[in-house]
Structures are given as structure tokens and as C-alpha cells.
């Protein structure tokens, strides 16, 4: 019988963390910013079908970087958790905090179980409240910890650099157009100080807009609407766009608009 080599626990964990971090760093970044009417998610993603940003529940959305199959798995788990909660209790009882906790448990278990390889993902869970002070943004790194973020946050490839850039320039009360432009600026700066250009086609943009009359506040910004916001037209709110079918997606009580 052969004796396995001794590896110290510190070394084992450091190796796993290193492995996960490398996987995450290979992907493109996602940034999440608060603006006056909600939270905007901007990802560099040329694919129209494979999303990095998705809706979880009425006021909660999810963004992820890393391996697609791993975070898609977590996303579906999150949707199931939220829908089951909302059905069992009430739609108001589904919170970003609860969801972030579930994700943290899952990621933590996978990270420390010896049998599995750690997930190479980093997640963001955000929820819009009634006002900007009630917005919540949680960042969940690969090891199952939770970081409570405010204002702006970046995950993925150049996360540190982008976060530093955003921290300097992000302020409270930005309009959607301003926040979006700042997000795109931060994504276009690459490692060695140079700049690339990103067009609307290479971006995946979504908002949690608290002014939406529907109960479900998540909305993707696509095509012309996105180009228009990127070009200027400051102050334009996603809720003002005419191409949006009015009427609640869910529940007759959603038809009134509480914040207008």
C-alpha cells in the first residue's frame, strides 16, 4: 500500500484558490453600477444567446463571470430557490441577502470539498429597493465568501484595475446614460493602459429599474435603445422607452406604479 504525499491544508487551499482565480481571470469582465433609478449591469459579451446577466426575481438580478456551465448551473439554482420561496410565502419574502447566502453556502461547500474541483466563477447578486439607499449589491468570489458592495463593482479579468477606475469616478445620483458610459469606459481600458473600442453589439446590458410599473423590474437594453443611451441623450430612462409593452407581467396588483 502506497502512502499518499503529505500536502499541508494551507497549501491545498492556496492551490485551489489559485486554480479558481486563474480560470476567472481568463474571462471578460462584468461591471455593476448603481444609478439614480436602479442598478445597471454591463458585460462584454459578443453572444446574444449565452447571457452573463440574468433575471432571478422581481427585484433581483444575477451577473457572473467564469465557466459558463458552472454559473448557469448556479443561476438556475437561484431561480428555483427564488420561485419556490415566492410561491411558498410571498413575492416580497425573496431577498438578495437570502439568495446570496444560498450561493455562498453552495460555493463554499464546493470549494472546500476535496472530491470536487472548485468552481471557476465569481457572482454578483443585486437587488433594487424603493430608493438608492435600499439597493443591495453582493459580490460572491469563488471560495464562498460574501462581500457587500456599494456604488460600483467589477468582477472578471481585470477586476482590480476596473474597480479602481470605477471607484474614482462613480458618484451617487448618476443617470442611466452617465453610468452606462462610465461602465463602458472602464471596460475598454486594457491591462497596458491602451484603449479598445466596444460597440453596442459587443455589450450585454441590463437594468433593474425601480421606476418600471411592472412587478418585474429587470429589463435588457438592446439594439437601438442601447446605442442611443451610449451616444448621449442623458436623462433618458429605460422606463420611458416606447417599445416596452405596458401592463404587468405578473399579478394584477402590479399594474399601479408605486414610484411615479
Amino acid at each position, binding site marked *: 500500500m502506497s502512502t499518499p504525499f503529505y500536502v499541508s491544508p494551507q497549501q491545498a487551499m492556496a492551490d485551489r484558490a489559485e486554480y479558481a482565480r486563474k480560470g476567472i481571470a481568463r474571462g471578460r469582465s462584468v461591471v455593476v453600477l448603481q444609478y439614480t433609478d436602479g442598478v445597471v449591469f454591463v458585460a462584454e459579451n459578443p453572444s446574444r444567446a449565452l447571457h452573463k446577466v440574468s433575471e432571478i426575481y422581481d427585484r433581483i438580478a444575477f451577473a457572473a463571470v467564469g465557466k459558463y456551465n458552472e454559473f448557469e448551473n448556479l443561476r438556475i439554482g437561484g431561480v*428555483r430557490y427564488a*420561485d419556490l420561496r415566492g410561491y*411558498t410565502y410571498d413575492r416580497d419574502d425573496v431577498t438578495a441577502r437570502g439568495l446570496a447566502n444560498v450561493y455562498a453556502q453552495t460555493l463554499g461547500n464546493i470549494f472546500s470539498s476535496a472530491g470536487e474541483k472548485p468552481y471557476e466563477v465569481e457572482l454578483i447578486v443585486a437587488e433594487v429597493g424603493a430608493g438608492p439607499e435600499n439597493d443591495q449589491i453582493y459580490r460572491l468570489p469563488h471560495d464562498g465568501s460574501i462581500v457587500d458592495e456599494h456604488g460600483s463593482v467589477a468582477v472578471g479579468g481585470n477586476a482590480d484595475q476596473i474597480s479602481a477606475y470605477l471607484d474614482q469616478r462613480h458618484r451617487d445620483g448618476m443617470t442611466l446614460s452617465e453610468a452606462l458610459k462610465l461602465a463602458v469606459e472602464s471596460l475598454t481600458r486594457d491591462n497596458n493602459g491602451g484603449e479598445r473600442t466596444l460597440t453596442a453589439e459587443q455589450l450585454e446590458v441590463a437594468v433593474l429599474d425601480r421606476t418600471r410599473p411592472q412587478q418585474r423590474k429587470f429589463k435588457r437594453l438592446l439594439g437601438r435603445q442601447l446605442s442611443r443611451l451610449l451616444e448621449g441623450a442623458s436623462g433618458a430612462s429605460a422606463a420611458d422607452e416606447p417599445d416596452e*409593452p405596458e401592463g404587468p407581467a405578473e399579478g*394584477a396588483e402590479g399594474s399601479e406604479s408605486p414610484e411615479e
Partner: protein
Amino acid sequence: MDFLGSHAPQLLPGNRALPPMQGAVEIPHGTTIVAASFPGGVVLAGDRRATMGNVIAQRDIEKVFPADEYSAVGIAGTAGLAVEMVKLFQLELEHFEKVEGVQLSLEGKANRLSTMIRSNLGMAMQGLAVVPLFAGWDVDRQKGRIFSYDVTGGRSEEHGFAATGSGSVFARGSLKKLFRPDLTESQTTTLVVQALYDAADDDSATGGPDLARRIYPIVTVITDEGFRKLTEAECSEVVRAIHDRRLEEPDGPRAALL
């Protein structure tokens, strides 16, 4: 829903143990739902009464709900079970949309509702039936469609108009005489309220418009712009117009003899 079924089956309406029957059960029942299509969409409407035997259990119950952005469901039958079934149906459509990234087809939604009604068959045999009417805008075919059901989940597509519930016999007669395929949206809303008026006229379990309490039928319109519920003001306008005419002609508009 599959996940709910495997994870928490006790939450599904069909998976409940049935208590032994002790005499007749007296529980609120919803009554009449009508639907009619017009060239740009479909209208689904319901009266506001729930009855418990000979007692009016509730005079302002809502029996028409949005299922998702492009469809709505109106329910007749045992109110408690029906409301829960609708809640589960709404949840399932939303869940599918979020997980898959696309909406179910209208046909798919109609089939799913059929399965849910069938799962309630045991209770239906004990007198707790739920019989909905499902209407929606078919995004692929670009038209409004109506589906009716029986207690066993049997699904049939209705062309033009449909009615379900205790007052449906009278409502259908009214719809049959007044319906034309070329009506506008506002004419169709008037049509369905006329039908509900006639149902309430002859069926004691169906509530007519209550002008004194300002309780009007729930009228919803689904077009390519999505689901819309008529506001109380809009409903009151339609109802008052009909009511004023009926003061002169209590039986409503006359169809031609030949």
C-alpha cells in the same frame, strides 16, 4: 412544475390527501367567464360574484388574472383551488421564461394548464371542480386565441367566442347573437359586458354590474402590446352605456330575425 413536484410535492394542488366527505361542502364558487376575439387580439372578462350555496359569498371577487405578459386566465369553479391553480400557473410560466430565456408558446401554455386541471380530477369528482378559460395573443401566429377546458383537462380551441361557468349557457347565447368577426377592441369589450349582463339576468349565481357599489366586471384585453386590464373608469363607462340602453330595452339589443 417538475422541480416543485420532486422537491416539495405537498405544495402541489393535486397532491393533497382528500378528507372523507361529510355531507355537502359549502365553499365559495366563482361563476361566469366570457371571452371573445377580435382582429387585433382577444378580450377576457368575468363577473364579480362568488356564491356558497344560496348565499353570495363575495361580491367583488376577481376571477380573471394575467398568466404572463401575453395571456390571461379566467376561472370558474371552486374559488380557493382556482386561485391557487392560477398562482402556480403564473409561477410556472415565469419560471420557464427565466430559466430558458424565452417564453413558452401559447399552445405550450394551454397544454400546461390542461395538465394542471387534470391533476385536480380527484377533487373535481368530489365537487371541487375548477374550469378555466384561457386566452392569449399568439406571438408566432399574430392573432388572439381562446382555449376552453372541461374538468378532466380536455382542451379545445374556441373560434370567435367562449364562455364557462354557471351562467355560461346564457352568456353564450348572448355572444352568439351579438358576435361578429370584424368588431373593434372597444366593441368587443362592450360585447363581453353585454354577455355578462345577460348571464346575470338569468343566472342567480352570476353577479351583474353593481352601479351603487361601483363594482364592475373585470375586463382584460390582450393584444400584441401585451396584457391590459381595463381601469375602473373605463369599465364604468362601458357598463353605464349598456345600463342606460337597457333602461329602455331591458332584454338588450335585438338581433335581426333573418
